[in-house]
Structure formats: C-alpha cells, structure tokens
C-alpha cells in the first residue's frame, strides 16, 4: 500500500504545524533587563538631630522604614525653593498611595529668619505631611557639611534683604537612612517618581 504524494505532504505539514505550536506555547516575552540598584552614596549623609516643626528634636533615623526626600533651603527664597517644594508635592501626588511610605524633609539654612513657627506655616502650604528643621547656625552647618550642602549669605542689595547662594540638590534617602541619589533642580518629576518607586520596591531585593 503506497501513500499518495499528497498524503505524505499533508502529514508533513501537520507535523510542522504541531511543532510550531509547541514552540509558540513555550515562548514568553524576555524579562525586562533588570536595572542595577541605585548605588549607596557613602560620601554624603548620615543621621542628624535638629529641632523640628513637629515639636522637639527629631532625627533622620526617626524615619527608618520610609523613603525620604530631603531638601535644604530658606523660606524667604522667592523662586528656587518654592519651585523645588512644588515639584516635591507633584512627586507625592504622582506616587499616589505609595506616598504614605515616603517622607519629605526640609532643613532651613536660615535659622535667623526661619523660626520653627514660620517654617511650619510655610511648609503646610506645600503639604501637611512635610516636616521642617531649623537649628542653631552651628547645628545647621554640621548637617549641611554631612550632606555636602554649600550655602553662603549673599547680600545683593535687594529690598527683600539678604539671600543665599546655595547648592540645590534633593537627597533621595532609602528606608535605612542611606543617600542613594541626588536630584538636581531640573530633574524631571517622572524620574524622581521612578527612583522613589525603585527604592520602595527594593528593600528585600537590594542587598549590599
């Protein structure tokens, strides 16, 4: 009994189809290349203790378990500081429910004018959850040095009084109090949101 040419051809096609289906069923999209974890920037940071707008002295280590966004500035600053704080408000809005696992902190380097009461009223405008610190000039200088923050009183003759020339970074600090990234004033909000999420997703996975 001889198979017709046509039957052989059909058999061959069926086998090829089954094989193709088998391969296809095993196929999965390649996992996205895993991003390397954000490095720990050991040169910067560390714990500090300063008088806080929540009352009493608070420490950075009080916020262990949360991702912290730390910024330095002064309330009499009309342009850069409110712009940075508005951007941090935007980051919190974009984080949605995850924002509850973060904390925004603001250290004033102008204790001469920024009483805790003034700082509290100022920060409340940008979000009720913001916590500010204003210590003595010496305490402020110590914390600034820890974080590589440079600030210099700058009298330009403005009727508004003195200002500061200052470094303008936002410090991204992980849930263990370690600085993981510095954001510039111009860093896009989505990049900050993404990096905060990387740290929020990371505690178990990011081992060093």
């Amino acid at each position, binding site marked *: 009994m001889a198979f017709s040419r046509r039957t052989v051809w059909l058999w061959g096609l069926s086998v090829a189809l089954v094989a193709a289906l088998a391969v296809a069923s095993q196929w999965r999209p390649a996992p996205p290349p895993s991003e390397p974890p954000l490095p720990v920037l050991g040169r910067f940071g560390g714990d500090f203790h300063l008088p806080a707008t929540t009352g009493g002295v608070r420490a950075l280590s009080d916020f262990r378990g949360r991702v912290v966004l730390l910024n330095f500035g002064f*309330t009499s600053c009309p342009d850069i500081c409110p712009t940075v704080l508005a951007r941090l408000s935007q980051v919190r809005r974009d984080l949605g429910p995850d924002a509850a696992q973060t904390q925004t902190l603001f250290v004033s380097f102008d204790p001469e004018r920024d009483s805790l009461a003034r700082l509290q009223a100022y920060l409340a405008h940008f979000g009720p959850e913001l916590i500010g610190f204003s210590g003595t000039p010496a305490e402020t200088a110590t914390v600034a040095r820890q974080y590589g923050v*440079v600030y210099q009183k700058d009298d330009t*003759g*403005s009727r508004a009084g003195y200002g500061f020339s200052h470094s303008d970074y936002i410090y991204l600090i992980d849930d263990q109090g370690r600085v993981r990234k510095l954001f510039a004033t111009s860093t896009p909000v989505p990049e900050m949101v993404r990096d905060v999420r990387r740290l929020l997703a990371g505690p178990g996975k990011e081992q060093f």
Partner: protein
Amino acid sequence: MRNWIVLMALWPVVGLAAPTVESAWVRAVPAVVPHTAAYFTVDNSKGSADELLGLDCPQVAAVELHESRTAAGQVRMVPVPTLAVAAGQRIVLQPGGLHAMLIDLKRPLKAGETVPLRLHFRRAGIIPVQAVVRDDAAESASPHGHHHH
C-alpha cells in the same frame, strides 16, 4: 489733511513696534512669607529693540528683576537692573530663571485673584498686565507654566 494721512499711514507701524506681555502669573505663597515672584513672557517678535526698566505693582512695596543662575551645582540670585529686549526676541520669565520679585506684599494673595503689574519699557512706555495668582504647589506640573482649571 496731509498730516492726518501720514499719521494714519504710520499708525500700524507705531502700533506694531511695542512688545506684548503674555502669560503673566504670580506664585501664591503662604502668608508668613512677605515676598513672591511674578513670571511673564515678553514677546517682541514684531517690535523693535526695547528695554524693560522695571515694574510696579500697587500691592507690594517694590518690584525687582532677578535671575536665578545655576553654575557648578550652586544657585544664586543675581539682580537684573534692566532687561534688554532685542527686536524679534521673546523672553520667557519662568521658575528657576528670570523672575520679578514682588517685595513686601501688603496682604497675602489668594490663588485665582489677579494682580495688576505695570511694566516700564524705555521705548514702549508703560505696558499694564493682569497677572493671575497661581498655587503651583497644588497644580499638576506643566512645563510651560500654563494655567490649569
């Protein structure tokens, strides 16, 4: 009669020579802060060279032109005594750069209200503009400072 014709012929030219001021807004700040910043765009794309000499506003003690300049990770505020506006130029005052500092607010400003500003130009004279008070901390981010409702 002849003078009238000349004047009418020149009128559009005179009219076009002035810069226009657009998108003026003032940042709403907490009441504890006596100063804030105003931002606007000077569009001189159809005008001839001019110079912004300063501003006044009835709701503050003084207005100063400043620029936030960033160099080597350091930001500082530099006074801008006058602002030259070349023919054809468009100058955007926006957060993190050029701004008009409104000093010693007579009362806190609320988001949504308007603040009259008068810009003094060397050639064009006084150009009045109504600046909208905006709370940019409560708004969604907008790259060009457009007003959201």
